[in-house]
């Protein structure tokens, strides 16, 4: 078999035990902690609590509960909410996931376009005013996390200038600010990575050869030098995209976007353990998958790494 393909398959199978560890760990964390989901409800009589516990199997030994959860999980069923028995975790996720995925994809686009663009601009003239200027801006963007940038942009463009809606996820205009706020931080990192990796190869022989062959400086910059930056960018982007697509807690909370991130925060505040479990497992699975994809792409770009 082709070594790249083989490595991809091996890595894919390695995900399974890790995912099992995640499911087990989160299950134990949520269930082992004393105090079941119905302990804090003051209104419940002992009989009602007993009934509830029996209904959800909470009176059974931990191992039996675990076995049931695992078997349901393998059948793709993440259970129902304790406080709202007619809501299943699957339905909620199916309803919220597309919103978060869309926001994440826009933000990824922002991060990639702005990050690569400014990185290349900075690297085109190293140690010049242009270079230091763009990198200073990138540093500022890194120090303005989404929960600082989001409210400030909302204050200026939403409340003062009234150019965009303050909340909601209906029109195209609603997508602009959240995507920017979510993506800019990562754009800054990608810009630094791009610049660094491009400058690393600047003095190498193959660049000189390319120049000697009469290639234009733009072509050298975009084809020969940028290629070297791809590996680190993919390695950085893989976990980032997973985080972006699965929803940012902060951005969805600030802009009142009905996505997974906001749902997770609300579930955390309301102790909706079943939902927390489901979201954690889903996030972990997506993150593992993205890491796998990134690994495959990097090996495909540089097959030497596949033959260790």
């Amino acid at each position, binding site marked *: 078999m082709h070594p790249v393909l083989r490595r991809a398959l091996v890595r894919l199978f390695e995900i399974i035990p*890790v995912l099992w*560890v*995640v499911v087990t760990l*989160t299950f134990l*964390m*949520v269930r082992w*902690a*004393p*105090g079941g989901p119905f*302990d*804090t409800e003051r209104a419940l009589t002992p009989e009602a609590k007993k009934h509830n516990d029996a209904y959800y199997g909470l009176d059974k030994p931990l191992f039996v509960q675990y076995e049931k959860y695992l078997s349901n999980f393998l059948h793709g069923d993440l259970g129902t909410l304790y406080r709202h028995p007619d809501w299943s975790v699957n339905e909620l996720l199916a309803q919220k996931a597309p919103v978060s995925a869309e926001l994440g994809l826009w933000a990824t686009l922002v991060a990639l376009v702005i990050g690569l663009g400014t990185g290349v601009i*900075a690297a085109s003239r190293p140690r010049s005013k242009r*270079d*230091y200027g763009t*990198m200073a801006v990138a*540093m*500022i963007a*890194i*120090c*303005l*996390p989404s*929960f*600082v940038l*989001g*409210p*400030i942009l*909302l*204050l200026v463009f939403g*409340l003062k200038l009234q150019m965009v809606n303050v909340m909601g996820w209906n029109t195209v205009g609603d997508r602009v600010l959240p995507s920017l706020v979510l993506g800019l931080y990562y754009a800054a990192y990608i810009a*630094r990575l791009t*610049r*660094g990796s491009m400058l*690393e190869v600047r003095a190498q022989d193959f660049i000189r050869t390319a120049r000697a062959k009469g290639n234009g400086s733009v072509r050298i910059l975009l084809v020969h030098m940028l290629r070297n930056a791809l590996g680190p960018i993919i390695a950085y982007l893989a976990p980032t995209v*997973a*985080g972006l697509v*699965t929803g940012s*807690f*902060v951005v969805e*909370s*600030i802009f009142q976007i009905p996505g997974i991130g906001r749902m*997770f*925060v609300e579930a*955390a*505040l309301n*102790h909706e*353990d079943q939902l*927390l479990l489901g*979201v*954690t497992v889903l*996030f*972990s699975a997506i*993150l*593992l998958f993205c*890491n796998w994809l990134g690994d495959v792409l990097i090996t495909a770009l540089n097959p030497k790494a596949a033959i260790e």
Partner: protein
Amino acid sequence: MSDSRPLHIVASSSLWADAWRRYCQHKLAVASLALLMLMTLACVAGVIGVTLRTHFGFGWPYGYEEQNVELGAQMSSAAHWLGTDLLGRDLLTRLLVGGFVSLTVGMLATGMVVLIGVTYGMVAGYMGGRVDRFLMRVVDILNALPFTIFIILLMVVLDNPLKSLLLKLNLANSQPFIKLCLLFLAIGAFEWLNMARVVRARTIELKSLAFVEAARALGRRPRQILWHHLLPNLAGIIVIYATLSIPAVILLESFISFLGLGVQPPLTSWGDLINQGASNMELYPWLLIYPSLFFSLTLFALNFVGDGLRDALDPRTDKGP
């Protein structure tokens, strides 16, 4: 001196003196260090002042939780330099106390990162072989997990048991502090991975060098070698990564507090203050702007100090812009 020897004999300079000299060439890093020290001093002074006030009735003019509802939210004035919030609490006082909380969480969690990361990395690197492979596999697995979620999960899950435990112990008043400890423990438990990796890599490099070989030949035990010979040589890299992990931890803490899942009232932190500011920004924008300014400036300074230290202590690494 009447001695006619040429005067080019200079005092030998240690690694740290050299590093300091290199650090001082980096103007932005020096300015950042000054800003950071000023901020830390102000926060500590604020907290000491507030504590004196609550216990002895003198010191700072305002308490961080003293409300003055009639006053309400006011712009900056001579009495309240940065204004007051909706409940009439002095914003500067709250910023200093919140900053103290944020910085403390940053330091304590970083302490945990250093403790776990360095021990783990050194053991993995020095033992090598199967132990190393197993330990690094664990790091890989942990690294593949969405740890922000796990930190939130940990805090949610431990919330109820902690509450009932404190009620039993008659310590319900100290709950905000316990929650704070939980926050830094949870952050520290996941942030050490990078440190472990870096320390392991450097340990592997160092252990094949002659001085370690010599120590081993002289019959020193592994623990002594790790402690007396490897650790001092790892100090530089540990300082660099510890400094870089402080802003990461503060960011994480503020992020979680912003969501309302971290620091609980009446205690506050910068993330919590930004959150409160964001929910009232239309009418009282200063409640958002000042906390954001304090937080971002500190983050900026911490990042530059980290970069400066990296350039100064580890000249081999690629210099960033």
